[in-house]
């Protein structure tokens, strides 16, 4: 099985899709990242990551409604796949276990 490598930004986008849940498309993901992480990614980077993640099988997409505000263009809505959820969990567990492996003294400072 290939290694499920996630880039930092990709992981962020994947999590954001989970957060916005029902209405996850380029615009909402970008807005949520702004709100949560305080960074302002380019629209193109967001879309690029969404497409990559879909290619990797962590996301699936379907066409949403078209509003007047969007000039009659349909949204492409994304949601997590089972693999997507797995990979997020895996990455979280990996971090947790690594966090716990680090000696407390690193975090608490103090003398040895």
């Amino acid at each position: 099985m290939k290694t499920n490598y996630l880039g930092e930004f990709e992981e962020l986008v994947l999590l954001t899709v989970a957060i916005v849940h029902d209405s996850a498309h380029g615009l909402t993901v970008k807005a949520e990242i702004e709100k949560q992480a305080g960074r302002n990614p380019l629209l193109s980077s967001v879309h690029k990551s969404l497409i990559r993640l879909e290619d990797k099988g962590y996301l699936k997409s379907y066409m949403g409604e078209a509003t007047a505000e969007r000039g009659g263009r349909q949204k492409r809505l994304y949601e997590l796949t089972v693999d997507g959820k797995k990979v997020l969990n895996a990455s979280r567990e990996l971090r947790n276990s690594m966090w716990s492996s680090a000696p407390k003294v690193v975090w608490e400072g103090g003398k040895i």
Partner: protein
Amino acid sequence: MSQHSPPRWMMKFFRWFCREELCDAVEGDMLVLYQEQRQHRSRFRANLWYFFNVLTFLQSFAIKRRGVFHHLNPFNMFFNNLKIGFRLMRKHKTYSAINVMGLAIALSAVMLMALFIKDELSYDRFNSKGKDVVRLSHRQESPNTTQESARLPFAAKQAIAESYPEIDKITRFYYWSEDTPLLAYEGQNQVEQGVYFTEPDVFEIFDFEWISGNPATALSDPRSIVLTEKMALKYFGHENPMGKTMRFKNNNKLVVTGLLKDIPQNSHITFDFLLPLELQRQMWLGWDEEGSYDLERDWNHALGVWTYALLAPGTDLALFEDKLQMIAEEHLNKDGKDEFSIQVQPLFDIHLNSDKLNEARANGNMVQLYGLGAIAILILVIACINFINLTSAQANKRFKEVGLRKVMGAKKTELVSQFLAEALILVSLASTIALIIANVTLPYFNQFMGKSLSIRLEELPFLSVFVVLVVVIALLSSLRPSMAAVRISAIQGLVNTFNLMRSKQRFSRFMVIGQFMVCNLLIIGILVINNQLDLLRNKDLGFDKSEMIILKHSRYLRHKDFGVLQNQLSALPVVQNVNRGYVAGTKSFNGSFGITRGGSEDMFSLGVKWVGEGFNEMFDIQLIEGRNFDESSDTNIESAILINAAAAREFGWSVEESIGQKLSYHRGSRPEVVLNIIGVLEDANFESLYDPIVPSVFRRNKSSVGNEVVIKLNNTNDLHNTLNKIEAAWTSIMLNWPFEFSFLDEQIEAQYAKEEKLSAAIKYFAILAVFIAFLGLFGLASFAVQERTKEIGVRKVLGASTASLFSLVSKRFLWAITASFLLAAPIGYYLFDQWLQDFAYQVQIGPAVFLTAGIMSLVVALIAVGFKSLKAASRNPVNTLRYE
């Protein structure tokens, strides 16, 4: 709230490159954001923002995938195209050879002519200050003639330099072609042709390259000499010439003070030696009767020097010329007549746009240059038409191939690139061959045109311009047939090709008409030029120029010595007559003559011939009225003159009433001489046939010093021996002057050499053009025949005769040739009639010329078309029907 929308083109651009499944989603997002931007930003900033965002999507994830196949290696097909191209060339050898050779020959001819034209246009450009340099010359208008001379009187320089602040530097060049400057160093004693007198400022105006010596001081001492590398080698070998002493005219000792690089060929004035003008002045001081001669005060316009001035930048030439007339008024138009004016001529105009008397060198001719340029372009056009015709003829045969390729899934661009690759192969092959041909033929071309052109590395960019030009033309021309081939459907290509070919052929027939129109024009041109030159060559000049020897340097013969020489030579049985004077040749002297009528004096400019005893028998000129000079009875033989019939006409007299009239002769400031007309001679063309017969007077000069000796021989059977005897007589009298001579007829013919060379060049190139057109027609005809092989076979089986088959194939070509001839004839008549206007004696453009031209082009076409069609018509139908 109304919807804002970004500029249409930005959205269009986005939609153009973006993947379809992504388009809506992304564009929708961007439009929402754009609305936000518009709310708190200017429209321009918002648009800018939008465009920036569009650009950020130019990434591989968002860009459309084109087609089904992805070209990972574009070279793959390219090499395949090349391979197919080469295979095709090998398969259709005749076609390829015609196409390549035609183009190569045309291209090499065009290259040569381009080099020639470029060289002609480059004259004097090496002078860095050239654009501010002008030549000052003069123009003399008398009632019957206008003469423009390239020179000014000696004294004009001083007067001009003093009165005009526009002039930065001014200098003079003096050279007299009849002078015999004898230069000697140790054992060598030779008359040099390239000895010019000039002044130190010359180096401030012209950029002659120095090897050693100081330009500022080299000519300041009157006893100095500056020479070129070539001459230094001739006289001093590999020794350093600086400081050596040379002897000039057996008299003056000159010190070499400067060494120049050889003067570039593309200078309108070239020389081997430069001597200070001051030396000439000193040599001439007081040579005249009063003993007061000083060239700096000589306003005689007949002699004179080339005068060049470096003007302050930005001087208005027309204005300056106007101002100069003050000098002309003051010094040249003394008797109150406005005969003389001074002209200003930019240096860069001299070589191509000046044809005055006494030019420093035979100049080029803009008209001939245009002629050559036009032929170059026509050759190129003909070759390109060939290319277009043959490529489309070949493309017609490849509809099947195209159809099959389409079935196999070839895309349009791939088909076009196939055709382009083939054209590229042909063109690059042709250009390479053209460069080789040009290189090989250049020496002959140089020899022929009297040039020293070379294809140097620096010329390559210039030459490659032509290659690029032809590549572009060829590609464009191959684009047409290839696009046609691309447009057809696969089925059309594979099944039904007939209708498609028809329309193509109509187009190529128009091209053939154009091509042969040009050829007809050129053939008419060749014929007219040839006839005109024949006329000049064979025209009865009205005098006998054969078996006539002119002795050079014989001006230096004293009168007493001339008697001795005359006696010695007359003793030779082969010598018919020995005379001294000038009657015919390439120099012409003019003088101003006045006739007093009713109190006022009319002035005429007439040719002056100095003659000796018995000159009219010698030149075989008939006396038509009056009497000849008579040694015994004329008390003052110098006051009697003969005139020619043209002069009588000029004066408005009949031949009879001319006898006994009086002319007064004006010469500079000297007292005028009254002359009695004692006889009238028939007209003869003593000088160039470009000009009408000059009204002339014939004078006897008792001393006849200063004129050349002319010897008339009875026969030229044993010329070598005769010349030896004459030389022996010469050397016994003239110890210091070498024996040199020329033949009168050769001298006269040499005048037309330049014209003849140029017309011969035009002739050869025109023949080349016709040949290339012939090649093209041949190729086209062979395609036409091939295409109809089957048809011919069927017709033959059904009983068609060879003749009818022949006409079947060749008819439409011959019609095209006839049409082209009908178009070309009136144009040719008009063009060459214009050209002939320049000549005093013009050949008639009669029907014979057109008939010959028409027949010639028909014959050329018949040979081109006939060969293939006859072959096809006479072939056994069994073979032709088995064709597929």
